């Protein structure tokens, strides 16, 4: 074993802080729109009575509606359908039930 290379201190290309903040803001705004329908689905899967459910639904519904109105939901829906086709075609005959993943976790 030898010492790991210390974290890179060499100058790296980067953005100044103001432009970094802009990048993060654009990222969140775009992700919220693109993921609107998925966010809405995740919010609706929260249990009735969950303290976050009304807020999550109130935030996600308008995003999902905008995404559907401008057609932003279509590419991801097509991608998900393609993945589902591949997965269902690939499940082997001898597949015993596998350990389930963690309970549905709201993912962006």
């Amino acid at each position, binding site marked *: 074993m030898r010492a*790991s290379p210390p974290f890179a201190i060499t100058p790296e290309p980067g953005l100044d802080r103001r432009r970094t903040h802009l990048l993060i803001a654009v990222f969140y705004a775009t992700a919220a729109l693109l993921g609107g329908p998925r966010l809405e689905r995740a919010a609706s899967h929260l249990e009735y009575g969950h303290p976050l459910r009304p807020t999550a639904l109130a935030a996600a519904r308008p995003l999902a509606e905008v995404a559907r109105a401008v057609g932003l939901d279509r590419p991801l829906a097509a991608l998900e359908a393609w993945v589902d086709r591949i997965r269902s075609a690939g499940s082997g005959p001898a597949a015993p039930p596998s350990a389930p*993943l963690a309970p549905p976790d709201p993912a962006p």
Partner: protein
Amino acid sequence: MLFPTILFAVFFGLVYALQWAMASRPELRKRFLLVASYVFYGAWDWQFLGLLAASSLVNHAAALALARREPDRRPALLALAVAFNLGLLGFFKYYGFLYVNAAGLCGRLGAPCPLPPLDIVLPVGISFFTFQALSYVLDVARGQLAPAESWLDFALYLAFFPQLVAGPIVRAAELFPQIARPPRPERLPTGRATVLILAGLFKKVVVANWLASELVDPVYDNPELFGRWDALLAVYGYAVQLYCDFSAYSDIAIGVGLLLGFRLPNNFDAPYLASTVQEFWRRWHISLSTWLRDYVYVPLGGSRGPGWRTSANLVLTFLLGGLWHGAGWNFVFWGLLHGVYLAIERAVWARRGGAAKAAATRSPAVRLALALLTFHLVGLTYVFFRAPSFGDAGLLLRALLTPASSTRFTPALAAVLAAGFALQWLDGGRSLRLAAGWQRQPVWLQGAAAAAAVAAIFALGPRGVAPFIYFQF
């Protein structure tokens, strides 16, 4: 709070905005980051926040006391500090293991078990933050590090949320200066951060989760139902799954750290391209292997003594490394196998001479052959790492010898396996070139493209996000 979730996305957005708003007030920013880290940790189980705070208080007090004493008066206090940390780890992580083995032994001898059965919940990340605390007090006792300027600095070092629950295991000497100085970076490496976070999400959400649900879990859960090709695929699949799962956490942690103005050490460097087991450990979980080298292997004598002593030191170090991973004989055996591999490898190369090793590894064909051999040797050890018991590991090894055609192989699975293997290319400094190209694009395009990539990653991955494998350690 798992990285690939909406909850973490919201949490990180808030922490990012608020901590940069406090950039001109470093003390306030430190306090805020500590509170944020405790909120992150408390999201799993708030009851263990006291444990984290107690560890911070005791280790900081011990380090201050050690620094005040003359070096010859430090050993007793250092032993107390080490005993405290190992005691915490021992109680929460190994008590159940000890009880099961003691009860089994007493049952065979017909004697009552002296240990009471306790239902102990393992605090997430305890192995990681305990090793960080241990390295801190040991470095202070050795005179290699000055104690933290304040409890706040040390508490933030121990609890810093990006790497709190699954590493990298950061040394205090690396993080203290970054915590102490006001964050005034002229430029943030956003390109590198973006590449690391996207690569990490892809590795975890698509590759690791896909391999787990479509191949590894079905085969490892019922190995008696499968033949040699599926068993072999599952062995390869788990090697790629483990790499993608664990390195994903490190990638995202490093990327998140960069966006907050912190640099965390690299933890992986294309481990499955290693041409020896020794090289594998220079590339796999680097922060743990260097920790074990500095605080276990070297104090044991390292490679200074005769050959048999070096071999014994290697085996002992990796036995402890195995035990660090989990309280089970399968993990101990996994560590033992690695220790034995290293001892044999060392003996073989010592007999052939250093020049022979250099000549052999210069040839691309020999390097490839050695890399394949190393990958398979490491893959064999993973059978014991992944299987819940020796019996299950035996069933899988038997399946490797059972003739049967594959029921799990699909072109999509092969593509996911290949993608997971190829993602090693991004380890180390190789992502920098990609990051530089990414960063040349307009800012709005970078943000929108990153968002589109994240959305596509979640569309490609299975529904739900499994916890990271290393959370259990």
